[in-house]
């Protein structure tokens, strides 16, 4: 590492890597501030007058095109993404945290098998479940409801929360909870006053990561949601094919769609390793 040649090689390798992985994000960001004329210019130029018109159009929902004004529902897609992700994570926390506690604290028959069954859902082809579900949802009246979507989103968020939070419960000494019980507190008070507060960093991390994964999901809503319930991932795709749409507006829509998860990821980066490996590896 001390030789100048290896330092230069290493430095340029890292520069190339950063270029490859960051360029698309930066380029789309630039595009989102360009007018159509700037975008279509060949060769591309870095010097342009930035415009907010793409964002204004998206957020106002009114798109002035050559063929008249076009209504777009991007804001509604954003709202759907937020609603679906927040509600799914909240439901998963309510369901998953007690279960994670049970798996961490009690060696009970079926315990491990239940836990692993839940984990294995993470790895089965989602369409295997989604396609028949699209038929069942019609019978159950869940087609195109937020409730039905949030239920199915548990497939993404629940295993994640379950396994990460379980790790945090396992890391805390059970004696602390025993001491609280011996002090005279009920099981429920011990769970809410001792176990959950002590696992709070893990619960927060799992929640943030589950939010990111729910937000980024595509196929669930593609199969089960119609236009007015679709999150940004599906909405943006429909956008591309919409007649008269401008490229700068697509770019702006992408930026607005990925911004929340990127910001959360930067905030939660300490726990990303753990979350991505479902609690198997600590960062």
């Amino acid at each position, binding site marked *: 590492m001390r030789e100048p040649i290896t330092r230069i090689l290493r430095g340029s390798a890292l520069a190339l890597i950063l270029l490859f992985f960051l360029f698309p994000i930066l380029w789309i960001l630039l595009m989102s501030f360009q007018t159509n004329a700037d975008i279509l210019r060949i060769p591309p130029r870095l010097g342009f007058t930035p415009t907010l018109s793409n964002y204004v159009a998206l957020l106002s929902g009114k798109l002035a095109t050559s063929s008249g004004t076009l209504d777009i529902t991007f804001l509604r897609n954003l709202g759907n993404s937020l609603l679906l992700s927040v509600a799914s994570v909240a439901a998963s926390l309510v369901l998953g945290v007690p279960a994670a506690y049970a798996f961490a604290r009690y060696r009970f028959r079926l315990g491990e098998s239940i836990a692993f069954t839940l984990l294995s859902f993470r790895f089965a082809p989602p369409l295997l479940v989604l396609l028949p579900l699209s038929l069942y949802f019609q019978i159950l009246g869940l087609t195109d409801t937020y409730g039905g979507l949030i239920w199915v989103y548990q497939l993404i968020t629940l295993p994640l929360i379950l396994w990460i939070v379980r790790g945090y419960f396992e890391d805390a000494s059970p*004696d*602390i909870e*025993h*001491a609280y*019980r*011996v*002090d*005279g*507190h009920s099981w429920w008070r011990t769970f809410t006053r001792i176990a959950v507060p*002590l696992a709070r960093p893990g619960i927060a991390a799992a929640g943030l990561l589950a939010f990111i994964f729910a937000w980024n999901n595509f196929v669930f809503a593609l199969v089960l949601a119609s236009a007015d319930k679709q999150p940004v991932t599906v909405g943006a795709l429909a956008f591309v094919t919409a007649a008269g749409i401008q490229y700068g507006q697509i770019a702006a829509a992408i930026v607005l769609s990925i911004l929340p998860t990127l910001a959360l990821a930067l905030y939660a980066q300490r726990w990303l390793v753990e979350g991505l490996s479902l609690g198997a590896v600590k960062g």
Partner: protein
Amino acid sequence: MSGLEISGIRVRFGHAEVLRGIDCRVAAGETVVLFGPSGAGKTTLLRAIAGVEPAASGVVRIDGREVQDLEPEHRPLGMAFQNFSLYPHLSAYENIASPLRARRLRTPEIEIKVRRVADLLRIDHVLGHLPRELSNGQKQRTALARALVAEPPVLLLDDPLRNVDAKLRYEMRLELPPLLRKTGAAVIFVTQDFREAMALADRVVVLREGAVLQDAPAEEVYGAPASVPVAQLFGDPPMNLLSARLVQEDNRVRAEAAGMAPGFPDLDITRMEAPLLGVRPEDVLLASPATGGAHAEILAVTPLHERCVLLLRAADGTELVASMAGAAPDPGTFVSIAGARHAVLFDPASGRRLAISDARTEVVA
């Protein structure tokens, strides 16, 4: 009966039986030391009594009431855990107040009681601190205060001095007995340190492999261990166990080994193949070689507290440990073994105690 009474406590971990039917009574105001090597099941027993470890069977009575079917929070007892187990997100004050909050006392009452016990344990100045801001000694006192504060009729103290430094351990050994007596509670105190047991115990219960080996006052466990394992466990350095030869005399039997020949008046067996003679190191009487007696070579010398411990090789080749006050002699020199002040005879096959020697000092002619 007031106090704690347990009988037939069994605990299984999978197929292994960790406690094989423990019986024990602790009267109110009494301190019983639960002594044994690690893995003996001491902590498991406390946890079973507290209800945080399910017992397969057995009865636990506190002040006459059966509690074995109750959840831990309904059992009237206080427990100090080995690792302190303080609540890391609560202040020392709130840690100590926890049992009082569970009992729904009013805030002013809680304040009075927490302050009183904190004063007693001299941690009143750190009540506002979080556990991670406390020294080990302060943590240990906080854990103790939490166990004491609700004045429970039963106190379970799981090796509370293990994780504190030697100086504090020494101080606490002096402070604890009067403190515990003042609570009037039935106390079970777990330790692996026989000195701690001697200092604190009204009675010692020796536990090994999930079974009680002996339940007796501390002096008796020390002076008259019920079996070879107790003799080996209780005492540091441990009791010498020497292969002896029985010699019949007019009204009693002597056991000869390494130049000692203590008499056993109560022994009714006269013939036994190589019984084990147990002699505490400090009971090996030493004299200068000039006085006669059996010579023994000093192989090694280790200072221990105010005494020194000698590893000796007696004339017959047996090695034994003796301890003596005063200046340490040099290794390689010789002493004379003049006899045994006190000795115990064990059956080599069953390991059980056969007899205790008479009080007289025996010197081989």
